């Protein structure tokens, strides 16, 4: 198992060890598991930084999915991987072969999902040639939230909570389930 998740998975607190822990929790029927990994804010020193980050996350993430799959857990587990915004396609700061950065870019960015209820092996939505703006099948954050709730078996238009005297929805007044990514 450690081999599959990578050497770092022996070291508690690392992302790889967390992935292994996540699998164990899911195996024990835990309903919701969230793994954090920070240090992606590469306004500078991107070439090095992204290499390090990927080294820490790539293998373990793949291992987690494979492991969930072989144990039959991916049948009813949804895996969502992403951050809260993307990065510009153009660079920021100094520009040399071994040092440059990228700014925040919330206008268009990517997430991936796999497991229960979502179509495997395809992409949904498109940006223009510069990766600046969405040109096809846009998915707003609320749409994503509505879709994830749908996969939880919850109608985002009916789930409300009461706050300061009125009922709120988790998706405010927006959000549509993205049917195109569902199986």
């Amino acid at each position, binding site marked *: 198992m450690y081999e*599959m998740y990578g050497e770092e998975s022996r070291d508690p607190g690392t992302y790889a060890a967390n992935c292994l822990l996540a699998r164990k929790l899911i195996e024990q*029927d835990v309903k919701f598991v969230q793994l954090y990994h920070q240090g992606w804010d590469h306004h500078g020193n991107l070439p090095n930084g992204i290499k390090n980050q990927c080294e820490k996350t790539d293998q373990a993430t793949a*291992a987690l999915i*494979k*492991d969930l*799959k*072989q*144990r*039959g857990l991916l*049948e*009813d587990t949804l895996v969502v991987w992403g951050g809260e915004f993307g990065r510009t396609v153009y660079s920021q700061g100094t520009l040399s072969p071994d040092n440059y950065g990228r700014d925040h870019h919330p206008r268009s960015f990517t997430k991936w999902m796999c497991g229960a209820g979502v179509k495997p092996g395809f992409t949904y939505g498109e940006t223009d040639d510069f990766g600046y703006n969405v040109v096809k099948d846009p998915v707003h954050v609320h749409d994503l939230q509505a879709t994830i709730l749908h996969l939880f*078996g919850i109608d985002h238009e009916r789930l409300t909570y009461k706050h300061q005297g009125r009922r709120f929805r988790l998706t405010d007044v927006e959000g549509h389930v993205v049917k195109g990514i569902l199986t």
Partner: protein
Amino acid sequence: MTQDIVTFIGRFHPLWVHLPIGFLIIAVLLKGYMVLGKRPVLQEAVSFALLLGAISALVAALLGFLLSRSGGYEGDLLDIHLIAGWTTVLLAGIAWWVNKNEDRIPKKLNYSILGFLILTLSVTGHFGGSLTHGEDYLTAYAPFSGRQDESKGRVLATIEEAEVFTDVIQPLLRSKCQSCHRPGKSKGELNMVSYETLLKGGENGPVIIPMDGGKSELIRRVTLPEDHDDFMPSEGKKPLTEEEIHWIRWWIEKGNADPKISILEADEDLIEWAKPRLNILGAEKMLAVSIDTVHLRSLEKIGFRVRVLSQITGALDIVLPSEVATGQVSELLKTLLPIKDHIYWLSLAETGIQDYDLNLIAQFSNIQRLRIENNPISDAGISALKNLSRLEVLNLNGTKVSSSGLEALAEIKSLRSLFLWNTTIRPQDEWVIKISSEKVKVVFGA
């Protein structure tokens, strides 16, 4: 012309009737106050209120008679309303006379007359209301009425059973048209509650011309500009939506107004619109009435993890944690028998179940996902599972099964995922290659 005058005057009936109701009730209340509160001085007021009540009741009855002449009302409801109404007039008159000569009439007789007056008044009012609003208006939302969700039609097992008229047209006529076009009211002499009466049409002739939506009065009326005098539903009522009109038009034009035509004959987008409005439960789910929640709580006390997958069908996800199962799994499984048809997902991973336990699981005929990995199960037990005709996902990781034992599973047509990690079976086994080609995804270790 006189007919118009009759109708015009008659229509003051619903307005006027509230007067006698008010007068007569206040008369009886005053009488009660007079007797119980010992205020004999009120007798004059009682008589006066009864006189007003009797006169206004007479006027109301006459207006009502005119209204009933104007057409559109008929049947038992009207008869009862009419008789009760005239009885009320009569009783109000008697009550007035009795109270005017109070000293000469036995008190008990007086009270009984007032009691009957209130009774007939209530009966008249109730049936009058039923005539205007529909017979089930009062009770439809009562907690004891056992009302089905009215927005949905009858319960269906599959969409193949759905008929355009019964399951699409009827429900929308019911919600949008039948408050006026029904027996007992029949506005425009049109009664829409059944196929026969709908086809018969109203005072201006038929409203549906099969194959010809353009000539069908029904379509014309609902598609007129909303401020047109002939527009239906009449003012203040919810108009039909575009899709509803589309459906009616399709039924008349393409469906030939056939009462039995299947919903599946219609255009794709129409079917898509109708689908969520149908009450389709699926054949196996129609039995899934209510789950015995007390039993579920007792299962949870034992240590089962119980999750309701669908409130509508009562489908359950049951997990037996391995630490609970230790040494007594066979007995614990028996406690699931009372809810066996509700179990859709079942997880018995690492619970120590053996081949003979699978005979019991084979009775859970609605199972879709079964996890029995990491148990001492062999080929001998597996064959019992072949009758689980809804099984989609089967997890046999870490069991002692072999290719030859699994051949029985080929009979399960619904199977789509099979987990065989940590078994002696190999991806290159002939049986695995064969079953993989039949749309079953076989998963081994990564």
